[in-house]
């Protein structure tokens, strides 16, 4: 018994035989097994359509919005099966950042950061709210840029700032895990750089799983990497090992640009 408890604490996220299908009988993600440690950055790489976003979205039960999508297998978050938990709780524990910055257009910058509490009907006092907003914005290095324009709409910011605002919005709920679905693919190089620096900082406090089709980004940012191909998890190991000595031929071909 002791042993299992230890094991559960060791891994913050465990994927066991996870399969996702959009049409019955055809798995977009097929029998993925992987364990992710706390305070690491894990990159999921692979060519378009290999199921990397699909796998990521299984982790916060996003697929349940679409009844035709079926997820099987077990996903343990801190040792608890997420399918036994309330989906809303799962999504609070596993924050998500999307491909395109999507701040709520009707809300001010301040309200965007605090939106998670509002949508969960969690009541906070004014001082608590101010604290959450300030610390969240500070942790994404946006505080100094926006502290004088808190009441402006979130969409008033530049694309890169919007994406950092979205990260702050996810962090405000103090999640265990941060899921990022190609967070820089819609950003210019300078904004991309800032978001990458931010991810590096956030690693100290959060566990991050990031989907990327940018290999150099994966190499720069991540401790561990997964390579997915046609719905299968081909290889999973430390980023260093994967980029220097890939075990699988397909990983090697992908990394050397034989296909993309």
């Amino acid at each position, binding site marked *: 018994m002791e042993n299992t408890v230890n094991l559960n604490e060791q891994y913050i996220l465990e994927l066991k035989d996870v399969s996702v299908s959009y049409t019955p009988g055809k798995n977009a993600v097929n029998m993925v097994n992987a364990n992710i440690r706390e305070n690491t950055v894990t990159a999921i790489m692979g060519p378009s359509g290999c199921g990397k976003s699909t796998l990521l979205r299984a982790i916060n039960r996003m697929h349940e919005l679409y009844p035709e999508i079926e997820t099987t297998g077990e996903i343990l978050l801190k040792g608890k099966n997420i399918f036994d938990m309330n989906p809303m709780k799962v999504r609070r524990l596993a924050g998500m950042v999307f491909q395109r910055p999507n701040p709520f*257009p009707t809300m001010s910058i301040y309200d965007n950061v605090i939106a998670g509490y509002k949508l969960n009907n969690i009541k906070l006092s004014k001082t608590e709210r101010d604290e959450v907003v300030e610390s969240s914005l500070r942790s994404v290095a946006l505080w100094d840029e926006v502290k004088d324009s808190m009441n402006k709409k979130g969409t008033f910011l530049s694309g890169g700032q919007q994406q950092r605002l979205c990260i702050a919005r996810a962090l405000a*709920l103090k999640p265990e895990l941060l899921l990022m679905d190609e967070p820089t693919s819609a950003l210019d190089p300078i904004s991309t750089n800032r978001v990458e620096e931010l991810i590096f900082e956030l690693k100290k406090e959060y566990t991050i799983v990031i989907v990327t089709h940018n290999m150099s980004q994966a190499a720069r940012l991540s401790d561990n990497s997964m390579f997915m191909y046609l719905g299968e998890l081909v290889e999973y190991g430390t980023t260093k090992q994967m980029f220097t000595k890939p075990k699988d031929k397909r990983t090697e071909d992908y990394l050397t640009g034989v296909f993309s």
Partner: protein
Amino acid sequence: MKKKKRLTSTAKYRLTKSKIFFFAVCTLSAITMVPLFLILWELVKKGYKQFNLNLFTEVAPTSMEAMLARISDSPIPGGILNGITGTLLILAIAIIIAIPVGIMVGVYLAENPKKRMAGFVRSLSDLLQGIPSIVIGVVVYIWIVIPMSGYSALAGSIALAIMMLPMIIRSTEESIKMLPTSLKEAGLALGGSYTTVVLRVLLPSAFSGLFTGSLLAISRVMGETAPLLVTALGASTVNWDATNPTSAISLLIWEFYNDPNLANLVWSSSLLLLLFVLGINLFAKSIAKKWKIQ
């Protein structure tokens, strides 16, 4: 040396064709504006004499008062206050009934586009839009006026609400469908329940569409006369009780039209009604522009 370009005959033909087409489009567009201005001109020309403050402060005159005024060659006394207040009362109740229902149905249609039930509701709502207003009026007469044993503002409101529904449903559905999926996903990814996300993210983001749609629906039914004739009936005094017969601007226009002594009042009251409707329309347009979310 500059060489002058010479056009081939095909190019010339195409340019001419394009010019003719452009001219035709401009002319036809101009022609569509003509009726509106002619109508406005006609109403202003005939109605300006009676278009005064009394219109807003006094109730409609009786046939006798008008006749006496005509004989002594003075302007017809009175206004259409009872019509204005009646229109406001009937519309207010119709809005209270139609907007919540319409928005909820619209959200349902936008969120479940593929369900059979949704398809069914959508076609029914389209059919509802095609039902002649007098038919809705007489049905409401059977449903409300007879059981309540009397004409009432409420019955009129229900008839107008039924007419407003399809427009509100459609505009809600369309404006919610236009929102990016990522917005809904962002809300849900923060752990919001479905209802909270709809109420606090989707509806506010679609607000300008909902608001304009509702305003256009209001302006559409504002001038309805036929369904009100058989439901609200009309009244000669200002009435704020929804269970009593109530007048409306459109009903007064009909009454004035039927009474030779009052016929002169048709123009000023029509002008007022038209200004109301145009005002709401212009307001809706400006709102749509101003609050549009990028």
